[in-house]
């Protein structure tokens, strides 16, 4: 039980999650949706990995598979627990999962459905503490009060129900619940996308402050590229179940190596009327994940596609040190960064 000294908190290796498609009276399996199809990344301590992609790309499924809310179809999720050392969550037994979940928690997207309407804030935030028998009675109340204060809510609200709070406040309650067990690692699934613009900044600041204060690592999932750039140290871009590019934030935004990343960056509506955007023409829409195109999944929409792209699936290769992209022409294309449109 030596404390883990490694420089990684989470190591995801070739993680897969397939959902069966069944049809007919007998529910025979007729195919699979490869929602997450072999993704790999690592998250160092106190760092944030941003996971971006459009709806249906599998980023939320990936989050729940990492949390082991969904059973992985394959791959490894190695969590470097402060007490237990390296644990493969994909195969961990119940007892190990119980131990590890103290150290990894989740913040959800929808502040409406993430809080039980029949429980008071005390019950909601205190539940993990009760389950892990960390606190009860007045000690529990004190701990919940402290957590509420930390996320910017008055401790007197403890006995109120979630419906009395606004979306931004509810998101704080959800963050307080995730913090209750003092975890090392938090998965935040679109934590600001249901919030108003003026509330979004408060929530992002709170997440950053908490990261510093509690030495947290984040897996930050979002579709808003501006938010992801702001909060992340590294960014992974997902497309139809796969990571197509991964790099540190600055390199990914300023010298992308995958045409899909370039297309995403060029699509961002910029809050500056002076910028005359020359968009990368990207055709069509996301393919059906149940029957993705052959070869590179992006080739039907890619402005740079050539014959090989429809035939061969490109492997994720290192273009520069710490910068990987899955494109046959990653070395040759001269793609534009976010400020070059």
């Amino acid at each position: 039980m030596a404390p883990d000294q490694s420089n990684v908190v989470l190591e995801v290796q070739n993680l897969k999650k397939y959902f069966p498609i069944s049809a007919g009276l007998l529910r025979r399996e007729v195919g699979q949706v490869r929602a997450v199809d072999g993704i790999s990344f690592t998250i160092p301590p106190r760092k944030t990995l941003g996971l971006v992609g459009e709806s249906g790309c599998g980023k939320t499924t990936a989050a729940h598979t990492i949390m082991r809310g969904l059973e992985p179809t394959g791959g490894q999720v190695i969590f470097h627990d402060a007490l237990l050392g390296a644990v493969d969550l994909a195969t961990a037994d119940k007892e190990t999962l119980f131990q590890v979940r103290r150290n990894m928690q989740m913040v959800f997207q929808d502040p409406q459905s993430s809080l039980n309407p029949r429980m008071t804030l005390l019950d909601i935030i205190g539940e993990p503490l009760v389950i892990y028998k960390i606190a009860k009675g007045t000690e529990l109340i004190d701990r919940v009060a402290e957590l509420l204060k930390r996320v910017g809510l008055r401790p007197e609200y403890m006995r109120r129900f979630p419906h009395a709070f606004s979306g931004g406040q509810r998101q704080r309650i959800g963050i307080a619940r995730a913090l209750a067990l003092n975890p090392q690692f938090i998965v935040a699934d679109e934590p600001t996308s249901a919030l108003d613009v003026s509330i979004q900044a408060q929530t992002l600041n709170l997440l950053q402050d908490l990261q510093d204060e509690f030495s947290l690592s984040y897996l930050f999932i979002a579709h808003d590229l501006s938010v992801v750039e702001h909060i992340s140290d590294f960014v992974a871009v997902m497309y139809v179940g796969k990571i197509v590019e991964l790099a540190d934030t600055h390199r990914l935004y300023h010298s992308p190596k995958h045409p899909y990343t370039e297309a995403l960056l060029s699509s961002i509506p910029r809050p500056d009327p002076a910028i005359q955007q020359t968009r990368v023409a990207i055709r069509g829409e996301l393919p059906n994940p149940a029957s993705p195109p052959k070869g590179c999944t992006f080739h039907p929409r890619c402005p740079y596609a050539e014959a090989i792209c429809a035939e061969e699936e490109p492997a994720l290769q290192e273009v520069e040190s710490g910068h990987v992209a899955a494109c046959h022409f990653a070395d040759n294309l001269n793609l534009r960064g976010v400020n070059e449109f």
Partner: protein
Amino acid sequence: MHPNLLEITDLKTHFFTEGGVVPAVDGVSLSIKRGGTLGVLGESGCGKSVTGFSILRLVRPPGRIVGGAIHYFGRETVNGEDLTALDARSEALRQVRGAEIAMIFQEPMTSLDPLFTVGNQIMEAILYHQDVSKAEARKIAVEMLDKVRMPQPADVIKQYPHQLSGGMRQRVMIAMALSCEPQLLIADEPTTALDVTTEAQILELMRELQDELGMAIMFITHDLGVIAEMAEEVAVMYLGKVVEQSDIQSLFADPQHPYTRALMQSIPKVGQKSSGRLEAIRGMVPSPRRIPSGCPFHPRCANFIADLCNVKTPQLKKTRAGHSVSCFLYDDGGSSNGA
């Protein structure tokens, strides 16, 4: 012809709920130029959508237009027709809705009937307003789908809404809205539910169609990026009031109302990553049932002036050509002294 297509003066739309009166729109004045684009920017609850619904007289009880006028200077009327004065079931209003002014929404699935094919629904809209045969209506429907860059429009008209993706559905909604060549299109957060690449496609489509058809657009959104891309004129709304109104260049170059400024500072700007914190606006939008006294923004304002902002309500005043703001910082008619 009148230079403006639509002029809203001192519009008040209130909701009479059990918990009290909610002044969702409280004295809004706006004008939309012929063929121009007015952006209405605001967060949830600011009354931007209710303003759109009020124009089409689609506000449902317990909501009611309680004051003001909406003058529409359509094809024939020179002096303008006050839409608020029309009878809710009149033929005149029916003609305005759909044929003169059309609307598209955030979630196209809720405005499309899942039981009818896409073609059926577009044709219905055409037959309602135009004196054409069914076969002609079908032809127009295919043409419209083609116009919104729908691939294989002849096949799409036989499909049901659930068979289409979100972006395709929004294209169908636009096709339906434009089928009668309206003078004004009210677009209420039309891309909010869409992914970023699809959003870019739809925004581009709307701009192209505007050039082609010459219609005016009222673009309602909370997204500063989208507004910068779409609008020529912008009205910033907060708690039922217009707090700043300007042409787009001036608004982004020199935002004057503390709310507008704070909003612009609070969003992360892509491509300009800094390691620091964002400049958040403190507090939250108050409940519309309990609107603060004086300037509605004063409890959150960084430039709050005690005994003034919480007592008196500022009026929208012109600070330079084409730029007005309702804030006491600009009361002397001069430039900003609080920044």
